[in-house]
């Protein structure tokens, strides 16, 4: 079944097609959820909510864009909503910590990291750092967009990223030892 046929069938509330679509995208989308939400249980709750919204609004999907990208945006929004609802999305910036960071050194790594290790690294970051890091590095949003999404200033978004990088560097150093 092509993606177009799958979408068309889902528009008609075809249960089989819905299952098929879920099976195709759910593992990847759960991965997205897990990057934002440490608890697997919560991540699966968010996945259910997001996939329900995908099916509920599938008629609104404009076939011009990427379908996976469209689902991913819904999942990310749902994850952010969850974090906001649980009041986990506190974005505090420790200025002293920010001043002590060496901005010049590029954040590089000598060995390959497996996806699992990446997830472990992300899990060690505070929610605010992790969220900005995910949105900027992986989702590819700009600071102005992140600021709008998280209702923070552009500078806060930038500083959160710097702090996330620094924390990540320290964690990597530990890992390499």
């Amino acid at each position, binding site marked *: 079944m092509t993606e177009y046929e799958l979408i068309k069938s889902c528009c008609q509330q075809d249960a089989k097609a819905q*299952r098929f679509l879920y099976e195709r995208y759910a*593992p990847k989308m759960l*991965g997205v959820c*897990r990057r934002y939400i440490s608890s697997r249980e919560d991540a*699966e709750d968010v996945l259910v909510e997001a996939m329900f919204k995908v099916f509920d609004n599938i008629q609104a999907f404009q076939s011009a864009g990427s379908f996976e990208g469209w689902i991913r945006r819904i999942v990310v929004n749902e994850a952010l909503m969850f974090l906001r609802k649980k009041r986990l999305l506190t974005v505090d910036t420790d200025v002293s910590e920010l001043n002590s960071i060496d901005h010049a050194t590029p954040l*590089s790594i000598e060995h390959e*990291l497996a996806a699992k290790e*990446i997830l472990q690294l992300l899990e060690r970051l505070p929610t605010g750092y992790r969220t900005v890091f995910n949105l900027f590095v992986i989702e590819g949003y700009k600071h102005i967009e992140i600021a709008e999404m998280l209702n923070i200033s552009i500078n806060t978004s930038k500083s959160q990223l710097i702090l996330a990088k620094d924390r990540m*560097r320290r964690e*990597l150093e530990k890992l390499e030892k």
Partner: protein
Amino acid sequence: MEEKDLFDLFREESENLVEQPQAETWQRLEKRLVTSRKRRQKREPVPTHWRVVAATILVILIAGVVSWIVAREHEAILRGQKQFAALQFLQGKWSASGGKMGDSLVFEAQDSTILRGVKTLKFKDILVGNDTFLIQQKGKNTFFNYKNQPYILKYTDYQTFTFLASDGSNVRLRKSIEGRFTLSFDEGVIFLYKKM
């Protein structure tokens, strides 16, 4: 080993970050989808062809009811006119006889009146006394004089009467308040009533 930028590594590896959800996750989602589907079916809009059929039936019904009401009202008007005419004959000091085809009509009038025939009224068949009355055709200012008809009226004063026939023609009569006219029609039913 070549050093790699962490951001690039994250971007690349995040694509491999795939986790299989528990079977129970799909069951929860399916449950919600079934509920939503049922709710949608309940508020499913009526198909277009059924809407068209319903609208047509409604239009026919409305048209039927309206035409029935109009017909009833028309009938009532006609009935009312007859009654009104009869009433006016008494109250307005009219006296009349006939009203049916071939009948002659005799009446007395004291003021302006309208004579309306429901069918074609032939003025040549109107018989009046040897006085003058004028026929004005609808939309025209031409007046026809009718003279030397059998004289049956006795007048003390002159007054202009207006008669309106079913074909829209006006018949103006200069007659006495206490005039007496005899009118006969070779066809149609006439209703006679006073203009208020």
